[in-house]
């Protein structure tokens, strides 16, 4: 067990560093799209929500899972779609 948690913490720390490195420099034009795009990725909690909604240990946990799936899906779908809409707008502006 202790090795497991160490492995998870290692993954966590490495991912944080990758996150810092990947977007060290962002042009201001992309501040909003980056924010809403990464916001959509934070909807990854959908994974946990699906497991809770699908395992159905108790009615209570299934309902909590259902609401969690709805919330996370709003986050994911809304986030990616609104980012796409915004970015298409930028392209349109450039083409002029």
């Amino acid at each position, binding site marked *: 067990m202790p090795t497991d948690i160490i492995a998870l913490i290692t993954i966590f720390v490495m991912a944080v560093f990758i996150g810092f490195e990947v977007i060290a420099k962002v042009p201001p034009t992309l501040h909003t799209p980056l924010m809403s795009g990464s916001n959509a990725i934070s909807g990854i909690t959908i994974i946990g929500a699906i497991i809770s909604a699908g395992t*159905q240990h108790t009615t209570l946990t299934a309902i909590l899972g259902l609401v969690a799936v709805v919330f996370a899906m709003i986050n994911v779908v809304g986030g990616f779609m609104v980012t796409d809409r915004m970015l298409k707008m930028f392209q349109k502006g450039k083409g002029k």
Partner: protein
Amino acid sequence: MNSSLLLASIVGSTGVAENGIREMVINLSYLVASILFIFGLKGLSHPRKAVRGNWIGSFGMLIAIIATLAYKEIVSFEYIIIGMLVGSAIGAFLALKVKMTSMPEMVGLLNGFGGGSSVLVAGAVLIESSLTTTAPPTMQMTIATTLSGIVGGVTFFGSLIAFGKLAGYVSEKSIIIPARHFINITLGLVAIVLSIMIVLDPSRTELYWYLVAVSSILGVTLTISIGGADMPVVISLLNSYSGIAGAATGFVLSNTGLIIAGSLVGASGIILTRIMCVAMNRSLLNVMFSVLGPAEGAKSADDVYAGKVKSTSAEEVAMLLEGARRVVIVPGYGLAVSQAQHQVRDLANILEARGITVEYAIHPVAGRMPGHMNVLLAEANIPYDKLIEMDVINPTFPETDVVIVIGANDVVNPVAREEGNPISGMPILDVDKARTVINIKRSLSPGFAGIPNPLYAADNSLMLFGDGKKALLEMIAALKEGA
């Protein structure tokens, strides 16, 4: 050995192997999804690759979702399908209907849903594990659950307050609760005590909901005292929190996909938060906990403005513009409020048709979210290569004939260069160095920092009082008449 027992043990072992393979495939899928998220985020930080980056990210999410559906523990797909359909419909509806001027509150709201989802997942897992005797909750799980509850609760309600402020349901001004530091610290301590109690006795699941309630109140009290102009920091910080809540939920489930994606988002949010803080020359703690107010001994508005403010008309501005070669437009939150982005473009088109160079000076914290002005002007089809960053455009102001400031105040206030006032040291747009500055503003009322702006009393400065959109329309009309 009895043959049937032997058979059973063989079947059993193949069953175990099958589950092992299944789990391996799921985890490898999460790895693929994580790589796609990294490429997606990388793409989102480059103008040319941004659209593709967003698609790569969403494809990663699709893979993660499909992989999760393969979990052997999932016995029923009813709730999953219903939840996904309902959530997708609401999300798509919001994304397609939202006006570009409402983008800050949209991002805030979506962010809140992510945080809320993490809270519910962690709660559900805690309840499940307290009911089974085969897999009692480990300390890793309970600690992560409490973290998820705290960060998720703060994110959910903090985002709702931010949404309320941006959408105008809650006062945009910083609302000062008496003894708020004491209240915040007390709420924080209560949350820590509750967390320890949950870790010591995970079977008391009701404590988790108390913890979520306390964290939710904390989310409200922390956010409500932060004023509208600091929203770019708050929004990007909450964005970071929603990632951290997701990563914490990943530790609850020992799920690498969640941990990686959550921490990527957490890191990217922190970077944006830092950029915003640097742009205001304030520390994060300062933005979060202190309230800007008039500094002691600061000059009063009467001292600064008395007899020196010159008011102008749209016709006079049109004449000035006709004689100009280079014009810089400085948009601020006032532009978003009066939704005048299309009129700005029309004005720029007229000027450009007459051979006048028009550029836009973008202050990093102008507006209510990071990059707010860029989104607004892009909606009006203004090419993004004309939106110039502060550091690049500042040296060009001495060669600029006319600067038009629309609804911005603190980001062009020259007292930022002096000591001893609330915005001391904040990088500003050096518009006062241009030949003429036109300030389109409703009144001389101070900006968020609450201090008078000597720019308005400067010799080269003219005030065009009125609503941004109306003033621009009058200028356009005057230019057309003059032609």
